[in-house]
């Protein structure tokens, strides 16, 4: 008889059925956003979502309502996988994989992910950073709620961008060390010991601010401006270029659009799989912060306050919400309504799959 074999590794797992073809469903807990779409989609009710709110709050330093005075609300020891799948019920149809907006569940058939198999539909969404436009400012890296972006940059050589040089006339220098103490770049070394007097200027550190020259009591420091004296010393624009790379970890990325939102150029572009709305009923909301803790996109946040003050409202950043519905499921006060009005997916001939995709709308 054909049987599913489950292999659990920490909070991740694999379920495999090996017969005519090898079907393997893998779950990556750290990628899961806890939206529960898989649970409501599974045609054989094999999936169960855990208490996502409690799991999210087990994060170190996550405090109740973003309030640093209320650390007692950290649920220590509640450290479970975000969902479980009963391998005796699962038939490895892959619907959970196809409909997972984060690709935390992935079905492969003979090693090929169903996202790469034409007959299976998949969401049309992306996030990318155009290297030609990127100025490596790292704003997207800071803003990304999933820590999915790495921007590495190579800065120009500072000495190449300094507009002049200083020189010391040792005949006039009395090695008093005033310039050394004044220098903000720590570019000057002075030895004042009698008989061993010396002064050395590190041209890689000097920024030509001229504080040394202005503070020298004997006027021993000469300044040579590169820009105004000799054209040969002009700064080469190529020396000022910042190079680097910006990489999005597509496994963690949920296509929320923060990168595009904060990008000062046109480098970051994204497309979400769902369109819809997010509403918070401020009358019902008790600002407990559960939604902010589970939101994978930082679309709902609680302002961080100091002192015994109650937060009035959650802050909603609608443009970054991916309409996954994790907050709605977690909210203990039924204060949140997430609606999906449009689902963008590649075509398929399967009526059941289309029905399941269309059922995401509400």
């Amino acid at each position: 008889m054909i049987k599913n074999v489950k292999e659990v590794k920490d909070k991740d797992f694999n379920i495999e059925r090996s017969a005519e073809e090898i079907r393997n469903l893998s779950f990556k807990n750290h990628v899961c956003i806890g939206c529960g779409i898989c649970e409501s989609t599974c045609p054989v009710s094999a999936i169960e979502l855990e208490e996502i709110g409690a799991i999210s709050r087990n994060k170190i330093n996550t405090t109740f309502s973003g309030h640093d005075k209320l650390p007692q609300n950290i649920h220590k020891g509640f450290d479970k996988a975000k969902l479980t799948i009963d391998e005796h019920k699962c038939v490895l149809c892959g619907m959970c994989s196809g409909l997972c907006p984060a690709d935390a569940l992935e079905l492969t058939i003979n090693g090929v992910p169903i996202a790469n198999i034409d007959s299976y539909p998949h969401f049309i969404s992306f996030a990318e950073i155009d290297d030609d436009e990127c100025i490596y400012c790292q704003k997207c890296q800071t803003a990304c709620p999933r820590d999915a972006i790495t921007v590495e940059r190579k800065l120009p050589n500072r000495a190449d961008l300094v507009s002049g040089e200083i020189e010391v006339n040792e005949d006039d220098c009395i090695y008093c060390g005033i310039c050394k103490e004044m220098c903000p770049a720590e570019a000057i070394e002075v030895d004042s010991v009698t008989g061993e007097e010396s002064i050395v200027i590190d041209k890689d550190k000097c920024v030509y601010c001229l504080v040394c020259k202005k503070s020298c009591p004997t006027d021993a420091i000469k300044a040579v401006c590169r820009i105004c004296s000799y054209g040969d010393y002009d700064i080469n624009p190529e020396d000022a270029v910042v190079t680097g790379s910006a990489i999005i970890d597509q496994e963690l990325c949920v296509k929320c659009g923060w990168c595009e939102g904060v990008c000062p150029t046109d480098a970051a572009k994204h497309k979400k799989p769902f369109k819809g709305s997010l509403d918070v009923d401020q009358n019902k909301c008790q600002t407990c912060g559960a939604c902010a803790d589970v939101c994978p996109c930082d679309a709902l946040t609680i302002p961080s306050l100091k002192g015994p003050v109650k937060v009035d409202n959650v802050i909603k950043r609608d443009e970054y919400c991916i309409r996954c519905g994790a907050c709605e499921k977690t909210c203990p006060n039924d204060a949140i309504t997430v609606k999906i009005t449009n689902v963008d997916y590649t075509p398929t001939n399967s009526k059941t799959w289309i029905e399941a995709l269309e059922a995401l709308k509400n």
Partner: protein
Amino acid sequence: MPKHIASGLKYLTAVKLKEQGQNQQKIADELDIDRSTVSHYLNGRNLSWNSIDVAKTITDLEPKDFLKMTQAIIQNPEQIRKIVNICKKNEYETIVEDSCIGCGLCVDLCFMKCIKLDSLKAQITSRHCCGCQTCENECPTNSIKILEI
């Protein structure tokens, strides 16, 4: 003893094929046995009539049990498929409804290898169906109907 019943099943298959107008060489090829054995079968030699009776009883079982018994008696899956397909008592109409989710469980379960997936839907080659109804019984969405014609 199972060997004799296996011969009985092959005999019944050979006779059926003969009735369908196939020549001895073709029958030998189909059953992967040599031509002289086919000749013996068709001339009623070297066979215990009792084994043929038992074989007949087996082919008369419910399709699921016929398949199971044949699997117990004969090892070669390809041979089992041929014998079951030729000796089955009925043809079947196979229906896959649109509620099929394309999980492929039926593909894996079908011993006769007559199901494949096409565009996330099971496609059953009816003429190869033995009527065992394993697919119908195991389908998680009850999307398969196997009907006797």
